[in-house]
Every structure is written in C-alpha cells, then in structure tokens.
C-alpha cells in the first residue's frame, strides 16, 4: 500500500517516561467506530535506540480490550491476524496504518470525533507508554483526515 500516512497536525504522543523513552510514538489516532462496532487505532512507533523494542500488549480505558493485529489484503482477500508482538528494530520505525498493522479496540465505549483516547502500550522491557490519540471521523482515503488545520 502506498504510504499515504501524511503528517497530521495536532497529534499528541505523550510518553510517560521523561527523557529516554525506548520508543517514541507519533501520529496516533483512533478511527471513530460505527455505533456498537470495534475501533482501530493507528500510530507510528519510532525506535531511536540501539536495541530492538517490542510492543507486547496494549490496553485502554476506552474499550474492553486491545489486540494487536495485522490486516493483509492479498489476491483480493482481506485477512486479519492477531499478533503477539510488534517489533521495532533499532533505529527504525514501524507504521500502524489502515489496511495494515493496527490496534483493535474491542467493544469500545461510544466515541465521537474529537474525543481523546489514552492507549497504554506495554514493551517487553517492562516499560509502559501512554499515548493520547484523538478520535477522527474519517479518512476519506488513506490514513489521514481531510481537514488539516
């Protein structure tokens, strides 16, 4: 898929640790789910360090549970796989974007455009990052909202 994820204004990625976070999180957002349906969260994980980092779990108060998934569309068929971990090699970044890697927010509470969801990302080293992700109504196409500020 073409890299359509462009820089979105007004993204906040707040890590709980201060100086040396093992992973930096940018461009986080949650797709506003239809009533009663599951939501997906997208973000970019940047590893500025010298060792591989692994995201091993995620959670949020905004939903019952969070699973890590990868969608693959191949030969016209969409498949989704649950992942045990998302690995970010040293010095690299991994993009979670529509039709690819994503966090699946299962049974979310009602979410409106403009709401903010706090995602807690657990790394295999024991650290937890808190990420503040705005809820967006839509992506006309690709991974970005239309109205840039």
């Amino acid at each position: 898929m073409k890299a359509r994820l462009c820089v979105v204004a007004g993204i906040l990625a707040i890590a709980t640790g201060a100086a040396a976070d093992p992973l930096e999180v940018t461009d986080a957002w949650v797709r506003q789910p239809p009533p009663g349906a599951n939501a997906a969260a997208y973000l970019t994980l940047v590893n500025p360090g010298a060792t591989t980092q692994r995201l091993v779990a995620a959670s949020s108060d905004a939903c019952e549970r969070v699973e890590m998934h990868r969608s693959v569309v191949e030969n016209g068929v969409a498949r989704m796989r649950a992942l045990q971990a998302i690995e970010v090699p040293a010095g690299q970044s991994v993009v979670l974007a529509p039709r690819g890697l994503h966090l699946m927010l299962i049974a979310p509470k009602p979410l409106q455009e403009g709401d903010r969801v706090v995602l807690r990302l657990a790394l295999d080293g024991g650290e937890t990052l808190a990420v503040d992700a705005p809820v967006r109504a839509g992506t006309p196409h690709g991974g970005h909202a239309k109205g840039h500020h």
Partner: protein
Amino acid sequence: MTPSPTGAAGPPSPGPDRTVLGVLALLAGAVVVFGVVLARVAPPTPPDLGDEVTVFPVPQPLPEFSLTDHRATRFDRTRVEGRWSLLFFGYTYCPDVCPFTLQNLAHVQRLLSARADPSPAAPQVVFVSVDPERDTTERLREYVGFFDPAFVGVTGEAEEIDRLTRGVGAFFEKEEAEANAGYLVNHSALLFLLDPQARLRAVLDDPHDPEEFVRLLAAVQSLGVDS
C-alpha cells in the same frame, strides 16, 4: 483476455523444400483468416482500464437468493434489477478493512452526487455480511447508516449468503477463534459491480483512491455489452 495468435516461427532450416513453404504459407493464411474472424466474433476489446478492474465481456447473471436488508425487508434479485449496484462483502466486527472501504465508498458516493452530469447513474452500495451469526438486521442498521444513510446492509441465512457469494465469485471463511476472543472472518476485499439486469459486470479493487474509482466506474458502466 484476448488470445494472441502465436505464429510458429522457428528459424528457417537450410534449403526448405516446396512442401514446407506451402504449409507455412497455408498456416500464415489461416492465422490471418482466424484473426479476422476473431475480430468479428469476439466482443470488442475493452479499453485498457488498468489492473484494478476485471470486466466480464459477457455479464454473468446472478442466481436467485433471498436475504434481508437492514430495514428487515426482503433483499433478493429484484432489488438489484433496474439499477447499478456495488456489492461489498464484510462483517461489522472488522475494525480496519471494512470501515476503511465503506468510508471510501461513502466518499465515492459524495463525488458521484456532486457531478454536473449525473450519468452513468450512481450505483447503490450494498454491504453483504459474511458473518450472519453476529450481524443482525438491527446491528447492520446502525452500522451502514453510520457511513451513508443510502447504503444497504444485507444479512440472512448462511446458505443464502453462500448462494450470493458463489454467484459472484466472492470468498469468505471463518477463522477458528482462540478462547475468549471474537472470531475473525477472511473475506473478499473487492467490489462486485452488477448491471441493471442483475448481472455481474465487473470486479473492482477497493476504492483507495475515490477519484480514480469514480473514473473507472463510469468507464465500466459505459462499456458496451456483448450478449
């Protein structure tokens, strides 16, 4: 798909005799004649629409089926007669590919309704659930309406859904779920375009570029049909 006549053109052997030359000439003639006949009989080659769409030169009639729409009204073949329709197969539990596609389809519909020239007519968008266990009529009502109030959501007996998916060549399979986890369903991510005679006319990639999709759609709808 146009079969390309393959000429048996090996390097000429030294000193071919007259018989061989004669046979070659006959073959060449046959190829030309075959080509002319083919050009007359075969449907006109569709213009090159790229690899994001497969057009059926001879549209495929849909089988009979009986499902229920999001308003609890019967949805059968008559509901796709007299108008163009785009079928998308998915399930409401899906958080990524299905909302992404439906959102883009809603964008396509907005582009279509904003056209100065409203022809060819905008197709009705039909979301067919491949997860009838979880996708009830009520659930679909909330779901499709969220994307576009004009979208039609369809569910029903698994057997009847099978009939429709087989009829257009769509694919789906339920995945085994782990304990305490909701199961997932693998499904076609393509869009199936039906003509107003309820026949499968083309299969299109999902509209990740709505402007391009609108262009492709109009091109397919304007193609002649070889009946």
